[in-house]
């Protein structure tokens, strides 16, 4: 799944480690989500979006998931 996490992190000059610490996960998980290897759970997606002050849809791209 495509996400805007990397872009949002860069805007806020935030490292993966800092974001991971803030949302209660590990740096490796943030890396995996950013490169699209791992799809975050609803809870983690909400925490990340809430941290950036955005909605889940604004951070995560669901367009590919809607294709049947």
């Amino acid at each position, binding site marked *: 799944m495509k996400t805007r996490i990397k872009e949002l992190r860069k805007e806020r000059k935030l490292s993966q480690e800092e974001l991971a610490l803030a949302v209660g996960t590990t740096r*490796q998980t943030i890396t995996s989500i950013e490169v699209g290897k*791992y799809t975050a759970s609803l809870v983690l997606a909400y925490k990340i979006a809430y941290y950036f002050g955005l909605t889940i849809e604004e951070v995560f791209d669901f367009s590919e998931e809607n294709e049947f």
Partner: protein
Amino acid sequence: MEKFRTKVKQRIAISSGMALVTVVLGAFSIYSIIFSDHSTATLSDGFVAGFQFGLIISIFGFSLFDIVKLSLAINDETKLTILYNKENDERMKTIRSKAGMPLIAITSVLMIIAAIVAGYFNIVVFYTLVSAVAAQLSVSAVVKLYCLKTM
């Protein structure tokens, strides 16, 4: 986080207990090796005793490592949070579950205990159980490595 801090303190106490038990068992093993009757001992007796001693040393090493790691974390709020996040990370939980944890770990410990007991009666059973443990742990490790790469 206070709950986790208490849990970490309990784990330090358990690891300290384990280290103490392994020191006593290790001393007993060394005593038995030095003062046992070597004239009647077979090669397999030596192997089982060596395996036990190796296991005791490994448990002692892991306990010490755990004590140092947890003691460092308990005195530093950031390290404690990182440890909490690492243990409760959803991706790692998924990977662990795909690798068969904690069931593989539980069955491995039970099989090792069974192997040590069986080793006193039949060395073939001992070798079979130890090989089975090695095989299941290897499969679990390979699956975990694969998942770490792909997830």
